[in-house]
């Protein structure tokens, strides 16, 4: 920095004193570096968000991702098992630090009840896909049906032109089915649902939160 050292006694403001004080002890540096690495590595996170069922919230929630330049991979919105509460399941690639920031900024929206972030280890994941494949190719090539069976997918409709196949599972299984059918050259259409999931936790965070809030309401 061209302007360095014009303020204090030393030429590299602050730095020398930091070293003298011995605050940069090796072990703690390594520990911190490891944590930083975890915090800064990009991976797929799943955000589970509960909100009141009010119009306009979805765009406010997605805007939080856009503003922080995080791309949404999948998004699923539906009424939840808690009456009046909507559930959003959103996946996105980002760092842990970013994921935590995003949840806090989403939770700050007035009508959002709760926002939490999970890695794949913390949740049981499901996703559905539908494939439209060519009936003539399916009849001609026995491998097509074999692949469908191998992937435990079912055929839900067949006519002379196409067959519709449905598969439910984790993302990698679905992609594997798609890849193998694509190699066989029979895929006409492929759609995925985006993921839904439930947590592996023993506690239900939303219920706890709502009970807690109810207590506060009654205390008023």
């Amino acid at each position: 920095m061209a302007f360095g050292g014009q303020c204090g006694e030393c030429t590299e403001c602050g730095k020398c004193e930091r070293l003298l004080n011995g605050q940069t002890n090796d072990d703690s540096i390594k520990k911190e570096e490891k944590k930083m690495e975890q915090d800064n590595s990009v991976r797929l996170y799943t955000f589970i968000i509960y909100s009141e069922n009010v119009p306009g919230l979805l765009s406010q929630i997605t805007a939080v991702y856009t503003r922080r330049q995080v791309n949404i991979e999948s998004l699923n919105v539906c009424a939840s098992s808690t009456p009046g509460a909507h559930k959003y399941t959103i996946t996105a690639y980002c760092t842990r630090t970013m994921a935590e920031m995003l949840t806090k900024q989403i939770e700050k929206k007035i009508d959002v009840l709760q926002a939490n972030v999970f890695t794949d280890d913390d949740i049981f994941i499901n996703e559905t896909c539908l494939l439209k494949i060519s009936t003539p190719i399916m009849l001609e090539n026995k491998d097509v049906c074999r692949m469908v069976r191998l992937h435990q997918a079912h055929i839900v409709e067949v006519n002379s032109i196409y067959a519709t196949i449905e598969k439910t599972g984790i993302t990698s299984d679905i992609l594997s089915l798609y890849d193998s059918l694509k190699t066989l050259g029979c895929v006409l259409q492929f759609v995925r649902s985006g993921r839904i999931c439930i947590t592996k936790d023993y506690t239900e965070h939303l219920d706890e939160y709502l009970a807690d809030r109810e207590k506060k309401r009654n205390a008023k």
Partner: protein
Amino acid sequence: MEKITGAEAMMRALENEGVDILFGYPGGSIMPTYDALYDHKKTLNHILVRHEQGAVHAAQGYARVSGKVGCAIVTSGPGATNTITGIADAMIDSTPLVVIAGQVGVAMLGTDAFQEVDVVGVTSPISKWSYQIRRAEDIAWAVARAFYIAKSGRPGPVVLDFAKNAQTGMVEYEPAKADFIRSYDPDPDLNEEEIREAAKMINESVKPFVLVGQGVELGNAREELKAFLEKADMPCGTTFLGLSAIESDHRLNKGILGMHGNLGPNVMTNKCDLLIAVGMRFDDRVTGNLATYAKQAKIIHFDIDRSEFNKNVKVNLSVHGDCKKSLAAVTKLLDKATHTSWIDGFKPYEEKEYQKVIDKALHPTEGPLLMGEVIRKVSEATNNAGIMVTDVGQNQLFACRYFKFTKARSVVTSGGLGTMGFGIPAAIGATFGAPDRTVCLFVGDGGLQMTIQEFGTIMEQGAPVKMILLNNNYLGNVRQWQEMFFSHRYSFTPMLNPNYELIAKGYGIPAKTVVERSELDAAIKEMLATPGPYLLQCAIMEEDNVMPMVPPGANIDEMILEYKSK
């Protein structure tokens, strides 16, 4: 039960919230409400501004000095879009506002009707809550909720998009009350463990340093802050918005943080062993280069907004909650301490800054007037008890540096957004929010012209704004950066100025221009002695720079004290 129009219900709902003043501007889609307002003139003082941006900034000025919710009312379409700057400004500076905008009737929504704008869509990202009132039946509920959200927790602006059919529809009005929203907890319970840990860290610290932000004022926690600082004998620095959270001359107040702050607090930020942030958000103008910011220190962050924790600066401990309560709780657990030698450590920096910068800014003996000397003289003429309103630019930075504070809620400046044109309307609002205090506005020749139309409001209301125009014939702050970082290339910053004195006089505002230093004291005296508004134009040195400065991106302790033009 008697049925009334939605517009009348809106009036009653506002009165029910204790509103007694509205800043606004009428138009087609809000006419039914203005018609109802005609019958409520005694209780709802409506201030007609000259541009809707002025209405919102005036409401901000009112809110900032009074601690109440500021209220603005405008029409749909262009009326609503003219409020955007003020709403964004209030959002980033946590100012409680309710902005009511007319809207076309619901049958026309989405048809690109005359003066239809998707106000909720446009304002959602820049407001705390934005809601469309579509039926007269929703008015009582929506207004109660709007005021509750605006003023509770971390305050902010709320927008009510008021459809015309809801204004004309008939309704049995019953006042509503909002003090609970299950998805929103504005007063989180303190966490005992956080409180104990904070006290422990402070008790163990030998070089603690406290960063004071506007949260202390918003939380009405000035006394709690003082007790906290004094018990553990901890020095502090303040942000611009936190300037009046503690008296300027308090023994433990070491000055201003950040880019144009004081040398001591900035250097000591990188020397302390414990940094304690209270109600501030580590803005980049405060931290400078984050990679080197307070790396040697442990950091505690007190805030009511959880999303501020670890946003810009990673902290060792966050203390979530209302700082009025958390500071008091921690103070109870603090050991009485003295940190004399640590506090004395600020002195050399204070002396150095005084000698190299402050003395020259306040006591020049020759050359044109300087902003610093004018500001300090005005401040002293109010016994440092005035309200400082600023516009944006060098006038703002100098005002924050040289105005002094003894009273709470004395700072009205656009911090986070840096909105030129904020000053005049905000100062008007401040005169209504604190009618017993002297409101001093410092404004540049650029910013004055951004909302100069509000001279009309000042004239009509006789609003006693003491306007000090610091005229340097430049967009000074940008010119300073061009001089320092863009090789002195003054790209569109010199300005040809009109005769401001004449303009003010055209509006019936007494005005005077001071060029000579020898005339300054008398002119300030005359300004303050003249009842009502006044414009004091000071001919300021054209190419002066605000110093010291942490250059953009530099480390916070690398302040330039002197800059010699090449």
